[in-house]
């Protein structure tokens, strides 16, 4: 054997011996699953939420050496599909860290599945049950729940419009819509106003003219829209086309944020009140840094879903001290943590796993007052309203 051949052979053997180590080093990346609708009725949630996740992952890699392996899973706006895909992701990649901007029904199912899998799941869905009676130790939520959203919009609006005593609601018939409706009814009653009527509609409805006729017939002072995303946009567009904006005030309690407002445009929005989980002009350092970090990923300012993707990822990271995934330890670490969030100070509560944050009441501007295409609304009121520990229905089993 020539000396050169021996050296080549030795180098090759060393590479083979070292290979498992290299593979192990690569395998140390932490599987991190973003499970959100990328298709189906709420397909628009996925891409924006993904931007937020990626901004956070990049930041965590640079600043905290946490090395996430990002995996995108399409929940298809369908709870049973979402659960099946969570199981598949857990078994195929060993993932135990999940975040998702899901339908409330999806989130409730995923929260239970995360508990069964020994995983952690952070969602931005809105139903009160997520951190209420159906809470699980594995599930956290970054979103002001329906109660806080209603109290953060309807209550200040009642102060702004003291003569508005008759309110009418249009509500999608499912867990999220029901929760908004019951809270609206309660808040109005407490404030001495009356919900004079409500029209329920199905989750697939796109034609709202019949419900708007009901609203017009009730002759309310304020029309409350409880529907969300594309349905909310369609309902508001038709309400304006039926002239209801000239007869009454309109409030959309839970908007999808900037992208939804952009899709409607200032002609429709002018004068409409809108509740939002996030608004890109919030004047705090954490938000300014976040907006700047999103710029390479999108030409538009971040919206609610982008902020949710970022905040949910950062919440999980808050419980991590290394690249090791010990979910029980991470959950323990997350509880009680305080964070500088993009909507203001955040606290991860230990008794119900709410990540408390701010909610915004916006008033949409006329086109002439806008300084840029994204300057669609002014923040009228910022609130952070959550059930107290005594009021919470959450009992971790």
């Amino acid at each position, binding site marked *: 054997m020539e000396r050169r051949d021996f050296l080549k052979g030795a180098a090759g053997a060393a590479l083979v011996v070292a290979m498992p180590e290299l593979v192990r080093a690569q395998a140390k990346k932490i599987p991190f699953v973003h499970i959100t609708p*990328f298709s189906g*009725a709420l*397909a*628009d949630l*996925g*891409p924006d939420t993904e931007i937020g996740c990626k901004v956070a992952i990049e930041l965590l890699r640079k600043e905290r050496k946490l090395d996430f392996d990002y995996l995108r899973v399409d929940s298809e706006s369908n709870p049973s599909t979402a659960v099946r895909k969570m199981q598949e992701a857990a078994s195929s990649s060993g993932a135990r860290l999940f975040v998702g901007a899901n339908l409330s029904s999806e989130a409730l199912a995923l929260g239970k599945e995360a508990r069964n899998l020994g995983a952690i799941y952070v969602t931005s869905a809105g139903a009160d049950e997520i951190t209420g009676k159906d809470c699980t130790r594995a599930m956290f939520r970054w979103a002001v729940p329906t109660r806080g959203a209603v109290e953060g919009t309807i209550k200040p609006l009642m102060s702004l419009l003291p003569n508005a005593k008759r309110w009418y609601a249009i509500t999608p*018939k499912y867990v999220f819509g029901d929760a908004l409706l019951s809270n609206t009814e309660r808040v109005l009653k407490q404030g001495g106003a009356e919900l004079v009527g409500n*029209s*329920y*509609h*199905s989750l*697939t*409805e*796109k*034609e709202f*003219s*019949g*419900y708007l*006729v*009901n609203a*017009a*017939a009730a*002759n309310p002072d304020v029309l409350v829209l409880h529907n969300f995303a*594309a349905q909310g*946009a*369609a309902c508001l*567009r*038709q309400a304006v*086309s*039926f*002239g*209801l904006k000239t*007869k009454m005030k309109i409030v959309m309690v839970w908007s999808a944020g900037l*992208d*939804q407002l*952009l*899709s*409607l*445009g200032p*002609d*429709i929005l002018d004068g409409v009140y809108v509740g939002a989980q996030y608004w890109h002009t919030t004047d705090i350092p954490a938000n300014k840094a976040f907006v700047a970090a999103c710029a390479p990923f999108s030409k538009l300012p971040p919206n609610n879903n982008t902020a949710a993707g970022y905040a949910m990822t950062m919440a999980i990271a808050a419980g991590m001290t290394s690249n090791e995934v010990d979910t029980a330890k991470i959950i323990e670490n997350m509880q009680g943590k305080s964070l500088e969030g993009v909507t203001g100070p955040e606290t991860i509560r230990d008794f119900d796993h709410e990540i408390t944050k701010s909610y915004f009441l916006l008033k949409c501007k006329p086109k002439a007052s806008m300084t840029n295409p994204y300057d669609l609304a002014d923040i009228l009121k910022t609130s952070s309203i959550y059930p107290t520990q005594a009021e919470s229905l959450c009992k971790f089993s």
Partner: protein
Amino acid sequence: MIYAFQIVNGLGLGMLYCILALGLSVIFGLLRFINFAHGEMFALSAYLVFVVQYFGGSFWLALIVVPLAVMVLGWLLERSLIQFTYNRSHTVQILVTFGIALVIRESLTWIFGPQPHNVTAPESLSGFISIVNFTFPEYRAFVIGLGILTTACFWYVLERTRIGAIIRAASERSEMVMLLGYDARKIFSGAFCVGIALAGFAGVMFAPLRGVDPNIGAEALGIAFIAVTIGGLGSYSGVVVASLILGVAQSLMSTIWPEGASLILYIAMAAVILIRPNGLFGKTV
């Protein structure tokens, strides 16, 4: 009073459904061809209106140009794919047109994103008509008027003109029509293109009412199929009557039982299939 206004609103809604279903009815009635891409042609047209407005063009320009553009696309599809399936089973037709629908839908999502976009009604039709305590959008009234005009013109051409007689004859006995010296293939091709142009016309008219999003095609296809099934496959007047019944029923249900307003469309279809399998005005095939 509210019920009277719901009936008025429902008749308007029914007229909108009629415009939507006409194209599907023409293609199915004359060609016995099941076009699952009808909804996506509708969606494509609605998106083209958005594009025209995005580049500063007017709605009126879109109203003329878009149905013609979609008709040309329909003709290309008919020549390259559809014509080879006329004599094949309905399963083949469904598979081919469903494939076309998927390509169009995914392309729209890829180009325009999953978010909805707004399409504005013409400035001259942005007001309201007041009826007692209620208001009705001028643009909806315009769509209803144009829908009635289109339906009437279509009925006249099909039932009262020589070309209409040839088309109807070709759909009944294509061999006989060919023996009389007419090219049945060209007649079928023309009928398919007209059906697609009607889908395009409906898309343009609907865009300012609903805006555009990638799912509008599936919804439109569902409503069109319900109207055609209730009216009777191949029955032109059946589609008109069925659409009006659906519109009024849906609108009235919005007051009587709001949760069931959409459901009533499917209940009506199921009831008609059970009681009159060929539809209200359909002939036994």
